[in-house]
């Protein structure tokens, strides 16, 4: 619903090899501004490798990536990353964690605290500004981590299995919140998961990846209506999409299991 037809991320013939191992092989991908793309696939299919190339943490073996008109050749703060293990700075309070990116940009203290405060409230953490991360639950830490990326106002938000370490209840709450943030902020999002349900609930577009070599095998437009909540899982269209995806994922998993047993 947020798409504008403008290309935000252009992945052009990307390969990443580790010796003989082909983590990614000739991946071509165009992601439009405002899309919520979920990368879906079993472990080892190169999902995280792709994300690390988009952020600039890793260099590709071949090909190029262009984000918002700029070719990625170093770690780029325009692609904000939310890590599965939160990666909060334990010596900083919640508000200082959220304001970290603004501090790096040299923004004055009063202004950056004001911005940080706004995003802390957006993720529902009012009253926790002066707490250290060690005093927070996993779900709250991941909220801080999301607020920290939002406060930095990136073009793209990347989330690498952000809710995988959380319990089922907390995960559902955070999924709903992320959807609301997406609808409000109109950011372009790439989200990694291996849960089909999570993919269907969140995405506007799903890319299914397979391993050996890592590549995109299926590109599905998720036409489930927005705004969504957990109830969407009861609709017939949901189950139709789910069985379609499951068919592909299942055959890919079987293939990789057979390949690894030889």
């Amino acid at each position, binding site marked *: 619903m947020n798409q504008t037809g403008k290309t935000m991320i252009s992945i052009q013939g990307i390969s990443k090899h580790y010796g003989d191992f082909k983590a990614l092989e000739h991946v071509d991908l165009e992601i439009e501004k405002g899309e919520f793309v979920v990368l879906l696939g079993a472990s080892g299919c190169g999902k995280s490798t792709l994300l690390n190339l988009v952020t600039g943490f890793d260099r590709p073996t071949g090909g190029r990536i262009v984000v918002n008109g700029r070719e990625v050749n170093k770690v780029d703060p325009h692609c904000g990353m939310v890590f599965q293990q939160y990666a909060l*700075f334990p010596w*900083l*309070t919640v508000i200082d964690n959220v304001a970290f990116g603004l501090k790096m940009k040299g923004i004055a203290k009063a202004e950056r605290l004001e911005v940080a405060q706004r995003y802390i409230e957006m993720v529902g953490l009012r009253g926790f500004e002066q707490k250290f991360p060690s005093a927070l639950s996993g779900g709250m830490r991941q909220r801080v981590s999301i607020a920290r990326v939002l406060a930095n106002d990136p073009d793209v938000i990347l989330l690498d299995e952000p809710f995988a370490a959380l319990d089922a209840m907390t995960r559902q709450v955070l999924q709903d919140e992320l959807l609301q943030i997406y609808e409000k902020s109109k950011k372009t999002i790439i989200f990694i998961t291996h849960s089909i349900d999570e993919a269907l609930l969140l995405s506007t577009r799903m890319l299914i990846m397979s391993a050996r070599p890592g590549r995109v095998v299926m590109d599905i437009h998720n036409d489930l209506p927005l705004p969504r909540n957990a109830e969407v899982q009861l609709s017939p269209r949901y189950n139709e999409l789910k069985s379609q995806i499951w068919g592909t994922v299942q055959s890919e998993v079987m293939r990789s299991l057979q390949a690894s047993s030889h």
Partner: protein
Amino acid sequence: MIAKPPSRAALLGTSAASVVLFLVVWEACCRAGLVDPIFLPPPSAVLAKALQMMGEGTLLGNVLASARRVMMGFLAATAIAIPLGIMLGTSTYARAAFDPILSFLRPLPSMSWIPLSLLWFGITETQKYSIVFMGTFAPALVYVIEATRNIDPLLIRAAQNLGASRWQVMKEVILPGSLAQILSGLKVILGLAWTCVISAELVAAREGLGFLIMNGKEFFQTEVVVLGMVLISITVLLTDFVFRLIENRVLRWQR
């Protein structure tokens, strides 16, 4: 039945009783003539000497002289070791360049620098500072390098991703992230600094706790020797206590 854990008061009482018992036995041995006071004076004589010197104003001066030397040398060593260590801990090339020098300096005891330092600086304050510096710099540097290597690389990535430059990563992530380990290393180094200053003062000095001990020995004033030793112990314990307070303040987030 499970025994109740002893209370804090009971444990403190036991410790206090142990100290009193030790002093009483020591005093009794001296009074009974089991030990010649030339070799070991009774605690009462040491106390009397302490009070006498305090009255003359010579006691505190010696303590402060040593403490000042420790602080100057220690602060100079850490002021260089912390930034240099963070640099060496993060740059493999700088590390490769500096490693041979560090490996050469590390095994040298501070005592071995005394002849050269006397030649260079004479019996001056600078010479004392330099001994403390040379004795503490290399180990402090090793502690800092070690501490920076235990930083979670994910935090460095997160910082870069939020726009931190190389310099900002060092200042905003590596320094605060390794501070806990650096401080616990520096606590050990501070003890080492005291060893350095006492050895320097034993060899050549006009004031200080090491000088007090050596001077006491020259004049067969054993109570002065013992008093000097007691004062070293007390001063080191005190600085350690102050250091702990600073540590608790700086590492608030760990509790």
